[in-house]
């Protein structure tokens, strides 16, 4: 039995942030003259959320893979700069303009937080490295429900509008069923919850007709037959969901998902961007990465560089238009 004991993992994030802020202040003037990446520079990895969350786990998985396969020559220091739904951490990265030794991982809030708050940055401002995976949603009904599959669901919903639960409104949970319903031609009432736990309880209690959510947290309930998966929003269904069709399979592909990717600060030299694209191509080929994708039921969707910037822009536009049409944002 081994116990991993890394100081940066258990120190309060603020302490680490404060300590590392000093270190950065001292080392900043020394800019890389030689080839990127220089072993003299410590890679300053910003995690825009607290320890234990989805973003944190992804960042630490990538760092573990980089270390294990010796893909990054220098030291890597990972800091949780949490706060304001990612605004603090990505704001910090935005401030590292042009510095190729700043890096961060993205998640859904990377697109939604700028829509909700006055952040100085937009998702397209950063130097994109790669989209590595997407968080997609599964539509489920209670295991007792008479609805057996998505066709029956659509038919029932057309006859009488149903309610669908999800987490938050400025969120993919609201966008996905809205776009799907538009394409499939049914109407529904969206019921917004604070957390996956709240909406799952509501569905089990029989109050909700259906809900959308990340499959990872509810696989246990699906296995036990308490919840019945109907349709999956990603490009391919994870193995754990069996033969559940994708929205594309049933003819109503919506093309929206939450991007999990890697970004550098704005205006980073192209050489650094190219180096990271090359490195990430190796990372996604490792068995560790495959295991991460499987255990978190993510959809492996990999695109690199400027295509990722385009993807971010499209996702943002999609979100904006749906949210504006319902009046959630101005």
């Amino acid at each position: 039995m081994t116990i991993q004991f890394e100081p940066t993992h258990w120190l309060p994030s603020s302490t680490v942030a404060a300590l590392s802020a000093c270190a950065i202040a001292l080392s900043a003037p020394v800019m890389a003259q030689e080839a990127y990446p220089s072993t003299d520079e410590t890679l300053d990895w910003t995690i825009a959320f607290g320890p234990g969350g989805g973003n944190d786990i992804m960042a630490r998985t990538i760092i573990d893979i980089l270390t294990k396969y010796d893909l990054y020559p220098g030291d890597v220091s990972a800091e949780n700069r949490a706060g304001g739904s990612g605004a603090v951490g990505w704001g910090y990265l935005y401030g590292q303009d042009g510095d190729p030794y700043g890096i961060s991982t993205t998640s859904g809030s990377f697109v939604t937080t700028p829509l909700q708050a006055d952040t100085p940055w937009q998702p397209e401002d950063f130097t994109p490295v790669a989209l590595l995976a997407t968080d997609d949603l599964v539509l489920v009904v209670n295991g007792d429900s008479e609805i057996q599959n998505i066709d029956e669901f659509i038919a029932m919903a057309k006859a009488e509008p149903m309610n669908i639960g999800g987490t938050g409104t400025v969120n993919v949970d609201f966008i996905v069923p809205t776009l799907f319903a538009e394409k499939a031609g049914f109407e529904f009432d969206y019921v917004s919850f604070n957390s996956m736990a709240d909406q799952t309880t509501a569905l089990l209690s029989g109050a909700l007709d259906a809900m959308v959510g990340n499959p990872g947290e509810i696989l246990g309930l699906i296995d036990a037959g308490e919840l019945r998966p109907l349709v999956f929003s990603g490009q391919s269904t994870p193995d754990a969901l069996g033969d559940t069709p994708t929205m594309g399979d049933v003819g109503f592909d919506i093309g929206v998902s939450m991007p999990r990717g890697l970004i550098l600060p704005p205006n980073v030299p192209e050489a650094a961007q190219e180096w990271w694209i090359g490195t990430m191509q190796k990372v996604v080929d490792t068995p560790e990465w495959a295991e991460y994708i499987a255990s978190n039921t993510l959809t492996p969707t990999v695109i690199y560089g400027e295509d990722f910037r385009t993807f971010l822009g499209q996702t943002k536009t999609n979100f904006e238009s749906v949210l504006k049409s319902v009046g959630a944002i101005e």
Partner: protein
Amino acid sequence: MDIFSDLIMGLSIAITPINLVYLLLGAAIGMIVGVIPGFGPSAGLAILLPMTFGMDPIGAIMLLAAIYYGAMYGGTITSILLNTPGESATVASTFDGFPLAKNGRAGPALVMQAVASFVGGTVGVILITLLAPMFAQVSRSFGPPEYFLLALMGMLTLIVMIGENWRLGIISALIGFALGTVGVDLETGQGRYTFGSAELIGGIYFIPIAIGLFGLGELFYAFYQGLHRFGTGGIVNYENEDRFWPTRMDWISTRMTMARNSVLGFVVGVIPGAGATIASLMAYSTERSLSKTPENFGKGEMAGLVAPETANNAASSGAMIPLLTLGIPGSASTAVLLAAFLLWGLRPGPLFMEQNPELAWGLIASMYLGNMALLTISIFAIPLFVQIIKVPYRILGPTVIVVCALGTFSVNASFIELYIMFAAGIVGFFMRLYGFSAAALVLALVLGPLAEEALRQTLTISRGSFMIFVERPASVWIILVTLMLVVMLPLLNRIGKKAQMVKKLDAG
């Protein structure tokens, strides 16, 4: 019996030396995490989670769970000694805990809270062991209509909290409700009073407000009274070592309180999302309504401390039920435990206990041992903690302010939360000065958003019809219990008082 063979199997796993070390380590960390104001179990768990990656899951879950329920023991210590809740579930413990310390009974108060915590925690684990499948049914019968009714029931307890000056009490509660409206509107997604700030998207958190209003407010008030000019002590008196142990009266008068609130706390804990904070507040007000001497509550009544303490520990056990039987986390802390299960590649859900009997029963067995360990640690640590109040006030006061600030800041690294805490401190001082009810404000801040969100969800689901509240069996039950509390309790009180008067007349 099947259950006992499972439990003995669990015990045999929990009792291996290395697992015992993890358990004790977790209990000790939990105490410390609980003692630091603002820094609650969920933050402590999240930070320690990465440390457990390389560990054996059984040892790791025992460690993490011990931190979680250990925090309930530690959190009360500062509630009693400094009027500063260590975490949100111990806010209610300040109501009578601090007056007890002020009256020179800090020692007995600390001992009683440790015992109450132990009773609550242990009764909770016994109920998990025997009746987990039954309570799983309770967990899954709660939807938005039930949460709304539960919040309404909680608001009835506001009437108890409002205090003697009802006008000021109502104003306090309204301020709490108003603060509860800040944040992104759950239904429409529009920001309410967020002023474009990303840090206010999630609303105003409860704990900086509670620390400010209770802890800092009390400190500022003590400075206002000039206590820093006195040598030692000041806010609370504690001289006599022989008054360390509770009196016989303390034990006898709180027996039933412990029994009642163990069950109440557990049941509230079983409901996902309600949790230890609501359980402790409900326990306090229920106990006060049932008491023969409600006028002593808030002035140092032992039952007023024992009730919330028993309930919050029982609730933290109860919250294990939805986690273990459905894979649904009932609170921020159990959400971290769920994340841990997922990280280890386990699949929480209805089949979890069947598929992972060693882990589930090892955890349950460890909770018996953990509570015993925590009781022992608490009793030995009390004389140490009591030293805190012997520190001269001019040193203690500023130290507490720094610790509160660090604790609050370390959770989300948010400066806005620090400002909120200090602002609440100043408001708390004036509330104290003019007789407003900080308890009512805090309760309104907890219940307001819960009630609003649940009502709007309910009405979206029912398409605007209020009939949904009488169509669901669980809702009907809650309505009946509430009515019983509203009608029966005052009636019983009146009959009780009449009987006493008759007795007095007879005697006279």
